[in-house]
């Protein structure tokens, strides 16, 4: 039905896609897998006729024989939303914040002249019910909905006219595992009910392994391997497919010897926020962290998993001494951790955040960025000493000491995350808090950063508190794991034990929701999660 035939694309002369060919049959789920920059989103935008300015294409992209690339803009407008629907990665920002969800779903119908305003509202209601939003009134605004609910609204708008192809570009990447599982289930159902085809674009092999009938693996603008999902994943003919597969379930070599001495002690910590306003009164306070206790030992790597809103960020801020707590105590090496703690004590605990793009001042050179935590020290090194320490930190993360004269924009995402780690190491801390530190990285980059973290842990005898929603990663890098749900630790134990034999129902739900790569393939590694 949809056929790409040797589609090539360049933007302002820069080649983006090369000879991309694929076919999607009616009712089929087709997975397009690749890392960022591989051209998978551009392939989708080419089908939609929504390529950025300066794009030049050769080859053919056809829908039932109509060449999409030669269609006029008005013809494309009639096609979009009508024959081909599309949903995107970020449900939080994909909807217009000043328009009700009902209006945004109904718009698909009215804009194509398929219904008058009243009919469109009725159909929109029906479509919202179909995507599982029966209980949500049409006059709600996007900000009143959760991420998963917003993605459902996007789906409702995309399928309002029963298109023949739905393109889903990383539809669940920004969502929690349980929400992700629900959205994927919904997509699968809808595709079956409506008999539409689905082009599922993702970086996550496990997602397509579960869903797709056929997949294509993309690397730097080319499809390197394609075929039925099972065959591709089992045979892994192309080296890149193998590399991608290995990286997805990468297990760094770690040799840790947990020291019995507790480094961080969290005792019965409570942090609550005033409840939301209801008119002039407030509802009861929200307990973001509710009586949490645990200990982290020297040289140990402890995982903290939970979904968004479970309180892990609040707990992290308290452990970093950024926010006050309302009850209990946090001690690092016996010293209380509070927002008023002495600067020198903060040097023992450093943090690496998720976004390698947002966490650096773009106008500073790497040397200044990495040396910044020195202000915590009572007697910071200066001049040549300081430069030596920065060089040492850069070497530790496998960057060149010469990189200290560059600016952050000269580095890739993975390299920036290395710089962030170097910055965290500069004060020679005992505890590194890794807050979703590898979540924004491609799988192959992520695998290398995990190796680096394992290596640094051995070298500097570091302790890690590894906070993530990504269970695969937590399983790969931690000794023990805490599972957090609505402010409480519901399960705690050795990582392997928790992952193989979870005792709490919530842990079981989480593990069940996580998409998995098939067991019998994947080389020598056991499949994770």
């Amino acid at each position: 039905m949809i056929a790409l035939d040797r589609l090539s694309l360049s933007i302002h002369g820069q080649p983006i896609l090369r000879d991309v060919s694929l076919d999607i049959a009616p009712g089929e789920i087709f997975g397009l897998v690749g890392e960022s920059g591989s051209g998978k989103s551009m392939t989708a935008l080419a089908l939609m006729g929504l390529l950025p300015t300066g794009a030049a294409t050769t080859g053919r992209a056809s829908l039932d024989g109509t060449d999409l690339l030669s269609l006029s803009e008005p013809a494309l407008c009639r096609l979009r939303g009508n024959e081909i629907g599309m949903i995107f990665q970020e449900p939080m920002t994909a909807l217009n914040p000043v328009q009700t969800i009902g209006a945004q779903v109904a718009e698909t119908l009215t804009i194509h002249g398929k219904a008058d305003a009243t009919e469109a509202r009725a159909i929109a209601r029906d479509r919202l019910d179909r995507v599982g939003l029966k209980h949500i009134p049409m006059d709600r605004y996007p900000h009143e909905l959760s991420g998963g609910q917003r993605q459902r609204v996007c789906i409702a708008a995309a399928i309002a006219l029963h298109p023949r192809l739905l393109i889903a570009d990383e539809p669940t990447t920004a969502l929690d595992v349980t929400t992700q599982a629900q959205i994927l289930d919904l997509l699968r159902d809808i595709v079956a009910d409506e008999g539409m085809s689905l082009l599922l674009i993702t970086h996550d092999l496990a997602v397509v392994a579960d869903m797709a009938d056929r997949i294509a693996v993309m690397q730097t603008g080319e499809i390197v391997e394609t075929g039925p999902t099972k065959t591709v994943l089992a045979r892994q003919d192309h080296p890149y497919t193998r590399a991608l597969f290995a990286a997805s379930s990468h297990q760094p070599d770690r040799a840790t010897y947990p020291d019995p001495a507790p480094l961080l002690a969290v005792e019965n910590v409570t942090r609550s926020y005033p409840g939301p306003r209801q008119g002039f009164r407030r509802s009861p306070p929200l307990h973001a962290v509710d009586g949490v206790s645990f200990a982290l030992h020297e040289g140990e790597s402890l995982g903290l998993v939970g979904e968004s809103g479970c309180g892990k960020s609040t707990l992290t801020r308290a452990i970093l001494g950024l926010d006050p707590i309302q009850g209990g105590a946090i001690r690092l090496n016996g010293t209380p951790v509070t927002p008023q703690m002495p600067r020198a004590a903060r040097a023992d605990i450093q943090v690496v955040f998720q976004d390698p793009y947002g966490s650096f001042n773009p106008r500073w050179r790497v040397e200044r960025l990495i040396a910044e935590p020195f202000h915590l020290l009572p007697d910071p090194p200066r001049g040549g000493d300081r430069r030596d320490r920065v060089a040492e930190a850069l070497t530790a993360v496998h960057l060149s000491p010469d990189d200290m004269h560059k600016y952050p924009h000269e580095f890739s995402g993975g390299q920036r995350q290395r710089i962030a780690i170097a910055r965290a190491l500069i004060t020679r801390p005992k505890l590194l808090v890794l807050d979703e530190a590898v979540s924004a990285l491609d799988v192959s980059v992520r695998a290398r950063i995990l190796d680096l973290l394992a290596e640094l842990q051995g070298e500097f005898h570091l302790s890690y508190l590894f906070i993530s929603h990504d269970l695969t990663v937590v399983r790969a890098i931690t000794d023990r794991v805490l599972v957090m749900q609505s402010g409480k630790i519901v399960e705690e134990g050795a990582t392997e034990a928790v992952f193989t034999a979870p005792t709490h129902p919530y842990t079981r739900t989480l593990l069940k929701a996580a998409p998995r790569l098939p067991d019998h393939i994947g080389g020598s590694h056991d499949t994770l999660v």
Partner: protein
Amino acid sequence: MLRYLLIRALSLSLSLIVASVVIFAVIEVIPGDPATYMLGLNATDETLAALRDELGLGGSALSRYFDWIGGMLTGDFGTSYTYRVPVAELVLDRLQVSLPLAAMALALSTLIAFPIGILAASNRGGVVDYGIMGATQLGIAIPNFWFAMLLVLLFAVTLQWFSAGGFPGWDNPFLALKSLTLPAIALALPQASILARVMRSALLETFSQDYMRTARAKGLSRGQAIRRHALRNALIPVLTIIGLQFSFLLAGAIIIENVFFLPGLGRLIFQGITQRDLIVVESVTMLLVFSVILVTFLVDITYALVDPRLRRR
């Protein structure tokens, strides 16, 4: 929403109280004896005493403040020393010119700025965009009194379509509006230029938002996506500027009022200052502060109408 309104209203009243205290202190308390200031160095003791009596300078500063506020609340703004008429009457008179003038200039500015701002944003980087950006740059750079004189030369002197100045009063609304047209155009030019630029950059900001991509994926054309989704989202910064511009236009038209011999509020306050008529200056200043704060309040309410996320606060 009700809570939002009440908080805004409370902040409005507090601002008014603070402003009134500052104005009163600066004019009546800090300089020392207002009567000496008003009459100058050559005044005799008798005239000074007479003026003090007239101004009611007998009591303490506190009681005079409350007298002043109480008077204004009941519409008594005092009597102008130079004009010998109640200030309220003077102001009302002048507002008949200034209010319509400001409203016309603002309407013109918005009517010009919206379409050209949208046009520039939709043609970003193109000839039209560069043309509009160049023209608005010029519009901001040209002093409006000079532009006003050019307007007079062309439309009043050469073409004789409009009169060169003066205000005939509202007995004949057509003539009144006609006499305000050239000044309104002169006032609107720089305002429209600024507003068009704000409109353009606010729109460009929304173009890169994800919801615009969603709209296109639903089958909206570029123009439809701009009209239905980008415009309302771009309105918040634009409204802020419109609010500031109205406040400015109400009192800031002094030069234009002088060029066109219009008896407006700007001229009244200017004359009040040169003639050391403190009663006029004090009350008119307070009135202007009130109007600025009121406009800000209205803009705040409009924000909440435009953006549902604010209604929750």
